[in-house]
């Protein structure tokens, strides 16, 4: 379960996000409001400072005016001005200016000429500050700031009276750093006096700013309200304090914001800390709160998981929250309902619906339980009704079902008396298990039961069963194996028609071997472990004419020679016979062609199995093999067994006719072992009949066998068949068979089946070549 997907995480995230948004918004609103307040405060302080500054400048000039007025009121001074010569006048002026701390002093008369001028400001004797003079004439006195020779001066113009105005004194005090400093002390503002030269560059006359900030200020546009000077913020104002002749003079007043904003930054920090703390608290709290929901949920999930795993007895803890309690109740009910339904399903799964008996699964589980719990040995009997299919076909399924029910009913009664359990395994198969190995009594009762006739739909029916018996622990260790053993034993009974068989472990082993052969057989074909051996079929008329039967041999790399009867039936069961037959036909064609080429042409017989006869493509395959090997078809004969044809006569006949129409020779193998009559064989498109060795073996000693062979041969001849006798082991038998009319003999007496080369050698010798 990824954390991001959990309810707990999401609840926490939701609340935290909400709080974060609220905190963020309020933080920015408060910050903005506070910043506004502080900036306004700075602005107001600047405003106040500016008023103070203006007032101070005004006072400065007033003081200067007053001082100057006092100076010009001095009688001796006036006398000196009124009566003395130029140099005396100038020195008197300088002396008095010095007293006032003024650097600039000049005297002008009523006509505007300048008789005394300590700095040489007046050019060509013309008064240099006409605007000030005009104001002085109007108002009596005047003051102003002017740029004189690159310096800023606070100038005052005051009349000299005796007692009428006889001239004007102009005094100037340089705006020095000291002036700026005094102004700063009183206004609490940074003060800088500036001017802009003709090229647009700013120069400062005096400033209280540190050198670095001043340099920055001079490079900045100075009219901005908020300035950042060398990293320090200032609330700033640019005031024009003088204009006109000589250039404009400005004062820059500044309030350093750092100290004003310090409380703001402190507040902001506090707010931020508060926000972080409350966010953390919120995370903790909502995590806890979500836990109130999710913890019981987790518990319910755990319960649900146990239910999933099949445990329905979980105690469901009821959480306090009503919704969750409801969920818990539902879960509890669900668990009970599932348990009930599972019981039902189990019952269905383990019961046979027709008879109400346990089915195969139920039987296996009961058997398993018994094997596990009981110290006693257990015996399983498996019953399969004989010819039940036939009964079903004749009387119909309804009757068939009734038969099954009736048998189930009385079998159950018998078995129950012995403490056994009866099951219907399916179809017409029943099985039961009883404790102990002494099963004779129950077996007898069962057999007696089958002796009785069953009345179904007013018919009396004889129903028999084949029975297989297997015991634990003697035959198998598990229920599954035990049942299989019984099954195999039952099949033995079927095959042998002996009603009852007890499981034989030896047969079991044999079958297991077959299974392991399957993989090997595939390899055998691929790796050419198969070979063909040839056994001659010799003409008994002394003509030295000879044919041969091809027999497949398997040289297993580990097991060595594997006889055909061990793997051919197995290959037939698995369908693998088709590949083997194909291989055999192809090989036989090639070998036949070789013999033909060697000048000893022999007709070779190849055995076909039941399955081969169902293969509609076989004729085409045989044809292609002949063509590829270049073997004329009269040199190939195909042998079939009666039983092979019987399995699916229609299709088998179709294939046989196709082969016959191709011109192939066909032979009936093992004649006499089946139930078919010659009348039936007559219908087959065959030209040869092989009498089984069972009749040949004792043909010399047994008159009966001789009779059979003779009559069969005669009948076969009359039908146009050629007759071959198998299993010829002695000269006597050979002679007897000739006497009885057989055409060919085959057996050890002539030759064992041998490889092609040996057969070719034998053939040459036999034919005296």
């Amino acid at each position, binding site marked *: 379960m990824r954390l991001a997907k959990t309810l707990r995480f999401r609840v926490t995230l939701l609340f935290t996000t909400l709080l974060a948004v609220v905190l963020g918004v309020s933080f920015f609103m408060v910050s903005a409001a506070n910043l506004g307040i502080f900036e306004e405060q700075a602005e107001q302080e600047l405003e106040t400072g500016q008023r103070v500054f203006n007032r101070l400048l005004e006072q400065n000039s007033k003081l200067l005016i007053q001082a100057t007025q006092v100076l010009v009121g001095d*009688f001796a001074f006036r006398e000196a001005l*009124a009566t003395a010569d130029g140099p005396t006048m100038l020195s008197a002026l300088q002396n008095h200016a010095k007293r006032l701390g003024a650097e600039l002093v000049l005297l002008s008369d009523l006509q505007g000429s300048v008789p005394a001028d300590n700095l040489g400001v007046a050019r060509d004797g013309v008064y240099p500050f006409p605007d000030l003079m005009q104001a002085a004439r109007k108002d009596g006195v005047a003051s102003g700031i002017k740029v004189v020779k690159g310096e800023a001066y606070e100038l005052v113009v005051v009349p000299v009276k*005796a007692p009428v105005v*006889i001239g004007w004194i102009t005094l100037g005090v340089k705006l020095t750093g000291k002036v700026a400093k005094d102004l700063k002390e009183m206004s609490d503002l940074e003060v800088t006096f500036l001017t802009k030269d003709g090229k647009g560059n700013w120069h400062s006359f005096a400033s209280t700013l540190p050198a670095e900030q001043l340099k920055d200020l001079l490079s900045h546009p100075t009219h901005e309200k908020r300035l950042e000077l060398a990293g320090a913020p200032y609330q700033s104002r640019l005031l024009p304090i003088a204009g006109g002749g000589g250039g404009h003079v400005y004062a820059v007043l500044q309030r350093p914001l750092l100290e004003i904003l310090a409380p703001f930054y402190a507040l902001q920090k506090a707010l931020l800390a508060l926000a972080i703390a409350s966010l953390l608290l919120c995370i903790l709290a909502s995590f806890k709160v979500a836990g109130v929901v999710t913890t019981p949920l987790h518990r319910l999930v755990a319960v649900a998981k146990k239910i999933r795993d099949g445990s329905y007895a979980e105690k469901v803890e009821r959480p306090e929250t009503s919704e969750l309690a409801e969920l818990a109740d539902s879960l509890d009910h669900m668990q009970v309902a599932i348990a009930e339904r599972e019981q039902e399903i189990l019952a269905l799964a383990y019961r046979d619906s027709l008879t109400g008996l346990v089915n195969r699964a139920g039987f296996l589980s009961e058997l398993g339980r018994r094997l596990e719990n009981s110290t006693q040995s257990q015996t399983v009997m498996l019953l399969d009704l004989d010819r039940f299919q036939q009964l079903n076909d004749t009387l119909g399924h309804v009757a068939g079902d009734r038969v099954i029910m009736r048998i189930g009913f009385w079998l159950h009664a018998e078995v129950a008396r012995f403490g056994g359990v009866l099951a219907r395994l399916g179809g017409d198969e029943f099985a039961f298990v009883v404790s102990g190995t002494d099963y004779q009594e129950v077996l007898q009762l069962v057999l007696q039961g089958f002796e009785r006739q069953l009345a179904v739909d007013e018919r009396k029916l004889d129903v028999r069963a084949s029975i297989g018996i297997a015991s634990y622990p003697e035959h198998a260790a598990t229920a599954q194996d035990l049942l299989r053993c019984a099954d195999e034993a039952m099949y033995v009974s079927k095959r042998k028609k002996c009603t009852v068989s007890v499981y034989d472990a030896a047969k079991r082993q044999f079958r297991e071997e077959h299974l392991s052969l399957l993989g090997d057989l595939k390899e055998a074909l691929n790796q050419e472990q198969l070979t063909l051996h040839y056994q001659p079929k010799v003409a008994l008329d002394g003509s030295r004419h000879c044919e041969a039967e091809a027999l497949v041999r398997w040289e297993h790399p580990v097991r060595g020679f594997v006889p055909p009867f061990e793997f051919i039936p197995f290959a037939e069961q698995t369908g693998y016979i088709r590949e083997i037959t194909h291989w055999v036909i192809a090989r036989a064609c090639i070998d036949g062609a070789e013999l033909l080429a060697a000048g000893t042409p022999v007709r070779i017989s190849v055995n076909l199995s039941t399955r081969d006869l169902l293969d509609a493509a076989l004729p085409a395959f045989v044809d292609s093999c002949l063509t590829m090997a270049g073997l004329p078809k009269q040199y190939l004969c195909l042998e079939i067994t009666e039983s092979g044809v019987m399995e699916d006569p229609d299709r088998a006949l179709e294939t046989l006719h196709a082969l016959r129409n191709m011109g192939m020779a066909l032979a009936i193998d093992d004649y006499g072992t089946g139930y078919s009559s010659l009348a039936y064989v007559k219908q087959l498109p065959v030209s040869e009949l092989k009498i089984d060795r069972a009749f040949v073996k004792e043909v010399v000693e047994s008159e009966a066998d001789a009779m059979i062979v003779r009559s069969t041969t005669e009948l076969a001849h009359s039908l146009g068949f050629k007759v071959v006798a198998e299993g010829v082991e002695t000269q006597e038998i050979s002679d007897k068979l000739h006497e009885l009319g057989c055409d060919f003999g085959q057996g050890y007496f002539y030759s064992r089946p041998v490889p092609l080369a040996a057969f070719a050698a034998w053939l040459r010798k036999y034919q005296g070549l």
Partner: protein
Amino acid sequence: MKYDKIAACTGVVVLTSLLSVPARAADVTVTVSDGQGLAVADAAVYLLPLQGRAPRGGQKGSIEQIDKTFVPYVSIVQAGTAVSFPNKDNVRHHVYSFSAPKVFDLKLYSGTPSQPVVFDKPGLVALGCNIHDWMLAYVLVVETPWFAVSKERGSVVVENVPAGDYNMTIWHPRMKEEMMQQVKVGASAQTVRARIILSKPDLRRQGG
């Protein structure tokens, strides 16, 4: 410090000759009014004969200091006149002049200083007091005995002016420049009306 003196007169003077028969001497009455036609006091009027020199007249004058004010405000004297400065106040005064025609100062005194001040050169002299800055008086020193200062009614009588042609000059502290015009004086008294422009402020102030 110098004063520029008289310049050309451009004022409009209306002259009315009442008597056509010449006499030996006559009074010349001048009525001085301002732009609004109001009578102007303290206007000094003097006549300079176009031919010959004016005779020397009475050589004495007086400017009192009463209540920290010079009285009269405007005086007109012939050059060479000795003017005394009697102090009628109980505080002392320090009368001075830095005007070019007569520079002098009478250091702190009470009563009448023993030596009067002789105004020997013609021109305008402004008088002040070094103790009381607001005190102001003018002495117009002229080279003729025929002069007078207008009173409250704006009328001034220059007495016993022998018949002849004169240059009449009118001066007032509030005038930018003197006003001059020619006057023919006959046997009988005559009245001259003069309208002057008072463009300058009145500089008199009251002190404490």
